[in-house]
């Protein structure tokens, strides 16, 4: 017995081991603190649903996912008492209401999305309905819904909240700032970057040489390359972020793609040269009577169709990708009865694995297409039209070799 006690004491009082033990305890405390803080953010009073099982629940869940949300939801589970727990953290809500700017945390809605929880702040009452924040009209105490689920006694407010999409944008923005400014700093000391910069540099060169230069032209590409590079990496990284289990769907938000498309519109409209406006408003080389008609078509093309095609293409591709991936994952539940648990799970895993591979390609492709088309539109606006075309022996025009842009439209 004494020997055991001695060994025990020697272990306890051994300095090295004490250090190790205290380290382990410290780490454990930290982990527990982190978990409990996450739990404290958790919206445990969720009164809803339970596990997502039926087809309707699945499509409801997918619809909810592709929308923006006011809290960062990681996962949900049902605990021992049959209570539904949601783990995640709340995000700040910033709205411009009839009583001015109002801010509070989204946890005050207690994970309600049906307009049942009313938050009263600075004299205004807010509810959250289908991921949108509504302000109740004067005197209303609860939200009234018509048969198509629209609020009749509440109106939408201008919502500047730090939503999940804004978090995604901020994260990607910070990441890009960190990554590319560290790449830029590397050039001060060495001409060839090392480490992560070695991965980034070819991508930058790719955008410059394959997107900016061929579409805008050697002479003018430089001043637009900054915008094109930013947009390319912004869209690409956000698309990839959307494939992670965090479930960002930033480039699948119309507001985000619209902002991107409108910025491109502004850039090519304001950098358009005389030839560009001439060809748009008073097309040379066609009968005078047709010119106004062409002008209308050209104006519609430049101000509506081009930006609209940009914003819808990106939005639709990314949203569709998310819906398809999530639907294929949902095969696990929806086909459980007909295929059995193993069959449904296997099928779901195989299909969603391959579609995710395709989505990784689509993530790049959509970033490339958006940037390429932006560069193309800018290139068309700044192109120098060489009116003295070369003529061959029979007097036919030889098109300029570089000027193949029109073929892409």
């Amino acid at each position, binding site marked *: 017995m004494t020997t055991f006690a001695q060994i025990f004491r020697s272990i306890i009082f051994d300095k090295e081991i004490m250090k190790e033990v205290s380290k382990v305890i410290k780490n454990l405390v930290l982990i527990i603190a982190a978990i409990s803080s996450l739990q404290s953010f958790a919206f445990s009073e969720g009164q809803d649903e339970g596990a997502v099982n039926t087809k309707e629940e699945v499509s409801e869940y997918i619809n909810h996912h592709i*929308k*923006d949300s006011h809290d960062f939801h990681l996962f949900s589970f049902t605990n021992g008492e049959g209570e539904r727990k949601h783990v995640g953290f709340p995000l700040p809500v910033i*709205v*411009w209401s009839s009583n001015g700017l109002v801010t509070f945390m989204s946890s005050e809605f207690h994970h309600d999305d049906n307009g049942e929880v009313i938050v009263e702040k600075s004299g205004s009452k807010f509810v959250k309905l*289908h991921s*949108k924040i509504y302000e109740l009209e004067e005197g209303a105490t609860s939200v009234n819904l018509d048969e198509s689920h629209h609020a009749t006694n509440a109106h939408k407010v*201008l*919502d*500047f*909240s730090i*939503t999940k*999409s*804004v978090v995604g*944008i*901020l994260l990607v*923005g910070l990441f*890009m*700032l960190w990554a*590319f*400014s560290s*790449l*830029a*700093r590397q*050039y001060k000391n060495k*001409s060839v970057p090392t480490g992560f910069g070695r991965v980034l*540099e070819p991508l*930058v*060169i790719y955008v*410059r040489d394959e997107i900016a230069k061929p579409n805008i032209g050697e002479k003018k590409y*430089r001043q637009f*390359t*900054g*915008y094109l*590079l*930013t947009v390319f990496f*912004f869209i690409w990284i956000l698309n990839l972020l959307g494939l992670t289990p965090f479930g960002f769907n930033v480039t699948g*938000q*119309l*507001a*985000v793609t*619209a*902002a*991107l498309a*409108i*910025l491109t519109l502004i850039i090519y409209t304001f950098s358009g040269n005389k030839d560009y406006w001439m060809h748009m408003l008073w097309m040379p080389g066609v009968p005078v009577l047709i010119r106004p008609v062409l002008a209308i078509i050209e104006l519609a093309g430049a101000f509506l169709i081009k930006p609209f095609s940009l914003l819808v293409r990106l939005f639709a591709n990314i949203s569709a990708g998310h819906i398809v991936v999530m639907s294929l994952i949902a095969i696990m539940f929806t086909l459980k009865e007909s295929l059995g648990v193993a069959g449904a799970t296997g099928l779901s895993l195989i299909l969603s694995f391959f579609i995710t591979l395709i989505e990784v390609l689509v993530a790049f492709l959509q970033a490339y297409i958006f940037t390429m088309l932006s560069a193309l539109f800018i290139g068309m606006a700044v192109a120098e039209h060489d009116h003295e075309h070369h003529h061959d022996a029979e007097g036919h025009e030889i098109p300029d070799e570089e000027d193949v842009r029109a073929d892409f439209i």
Partner: protein
Amino acid sequence: METLINDFSPGLFVVQTILLLGLIFLLVKFAWKPILNSLNERETGIQEALAAAERAKADMQNLQADNDRMLQEARAEREAMLKEAREIKEKMISDSKEQAKIEGDKMIKQAQATIESEKKAAVAEIKSQVAELSVSIAEKVIKEELSGKDKQLKLVEKMLDDIKLN
């Protein structure tokens, strides 16, 4: 369409526009401008280095050609010098031979002249000695012969015969 419009969040649009503009501004200032400038610098540097290498190669080739030409020239010069030397040698030899021949001829001629004169002198000498001898013989003979008349005559005859034979 209605759901799409309903889903469109003007607030998010404003936030996204502001953040995107800020991101573009910061990235252009701190990343794209230095990166693109360094890339351009590096590319022009590489191009210049390649051109310099090309020029060095051309220079090298010129140098090689020069060397070859100089070698050729040196070889030709040596050839010419050798030929000249050979010619000089031959000329010298032939000249010497000529000289020697002339000298030899001259010497031979002299020798012949000397021999001739010597011969003449000798002949003259012989003649005078013969004359003296003949005189002394004649004296002796005369002395002898003159001792007897027959003998004197006989001797005269005999001598005369000898002279005739000569």
